[in-house]
């Protein structure tokens, strides 16, 4: 049925008739205008900056408007090592972003702590406190990898439903859009992770795309 509908749309387009659904055009608009938060933590941020400049040109995907305020941003690119001292501020920035919002964890440090994992001062991955949509491995990932992550995120946005049980996270009233900010403890951050988001559950909306 779905395939037939797609074929029909293609056939109609060939005849000069364009059909769409509200969901499709809404997601099309959203995915091509994702504004990232101006926000870098370490060397990965340099690659992120390179991605935004002329050679790699993330503007081709509608994400060139880096917003210095979380209130105006749709996407948080966690680019670099998240130290335990910085983690509460990162979670606070996430909380201040309006829905719908997305997170890309860029590089080995942001996804797992990377080479500093066994250190006393580095968070073992930002997904311990906020849900992450796309993880990029690499140390640092090249701009192409960030672009790939961004295209992956666009696919994810494109596939989000507006209605029904499987509708997007931000359209459900009972799902949280803010997460508790960890406190500075005497030995570590308290709590060390948020059980609600970590480890990611198979049924979570933040599961890996097939």
């Amino acid at each position, binding site marked *: 049925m779905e395939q037939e509908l797609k074929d029909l749309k293609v056939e109609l387009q060939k005849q000069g008739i364009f059909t769409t659904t509200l969901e499709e055009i809404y997601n099309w608009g959203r995915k091509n205008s994702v504004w990232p938060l101006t926000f870098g933590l370490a060397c990965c941020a340099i690659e992120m900056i390179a991605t935004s400049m002329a050679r790699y040109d993330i503007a081709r995907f509608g994400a060139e408007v880096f917003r210095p305020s979380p209130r105006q941003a749709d996407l948080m690119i966690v680019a670099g090592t998240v130290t*335990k*001292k910085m983690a509460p501020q990162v979670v606070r920035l996430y909380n201040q972003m309006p829905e719908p919002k997305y997170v890309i964890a860029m590089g080995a440090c942001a996804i797992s702590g990377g080479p500093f994992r*066994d*250190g*006393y*001062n580095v968070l*073992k991955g930002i997904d311990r406190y906020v849900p992450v949509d796309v993880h990029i491995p690499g140390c640092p990932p090249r701009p192409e990898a960030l672009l790939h992550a961004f295209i992956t995120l666009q696919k994810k946005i494109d596939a989000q439903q507006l209605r029904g049980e499987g509708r997007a996270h931000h359209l459900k009233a009972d799902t949280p859009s803010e997460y508790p900010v960890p406190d*500075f*403890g*005497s*030995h*570590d951050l308290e709590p*060390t*992770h948020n059980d609600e988001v970590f*480890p*990611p559950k*198979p049924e979570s909306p933040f599961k*890996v795309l097939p």
Partner: protein
Amino acid sequence: MSDMSEMSPQAGPAGTDLSAEAVRAALVAAIPGCEVTVLENGSVSGQHSLVLGHEHAVEAAKFLRDNAELRLDFCSNMTGVDWPDKEVTEKVKVKKVVEGPEGPSEQEVEETRKTTVPGYLEAVYHLFSMEKKHGPVILRLRTRDRADGNHVPSLTPVWRSAEFQEREAFDLYGIVFDGHPDLRRLLMWEEFTDYPMRKDYVPPPEDDPVVDDGCLPAADAEQGAAGA
């Protein structure tokens, strides 16, 4: 001091003798009662250092900075070192009365003695002269122990560049610098109570649950096939 014939490897173009022995002699001559000992460095670099007593440390530092020939006006680096308690075993020959077949007699007997050398914390300063283009002269300050006696005098009033580095040593080693203008933790948060660079620091336990997403067996199988 300015003996041109005996130039040390640490001497600058001006020819000032910067060897630890010479600097020690200058300090002792200038400051009566100044406790300063030379600590030999047996490595190839041969950078011998001076261990300063607490009482005259600031005075000695001011002398090194202001003395017309030394002019060590730049503290390029300051760091901490943790020397934990260590157990030393040594064999000692002791004269003892031993019961032999021909009655008691005095004999030399070897005994193994175990002694614990108490640990301490150390602050190390590397000094250079911008004006004379020479250096380094290395100073060490040692705390009494690693617990309550973790105090050394601060040299920040002498070299401003030591301020943040002393704060770092306070943060990570727990050395308290008396006389520091603003001694707070630099890198870790205020509520933190540990000293992570000490040798006996235990990091918080790993609380990472293993996430089985089914990827690992497939990856293992692939690796096995590749290896075979």
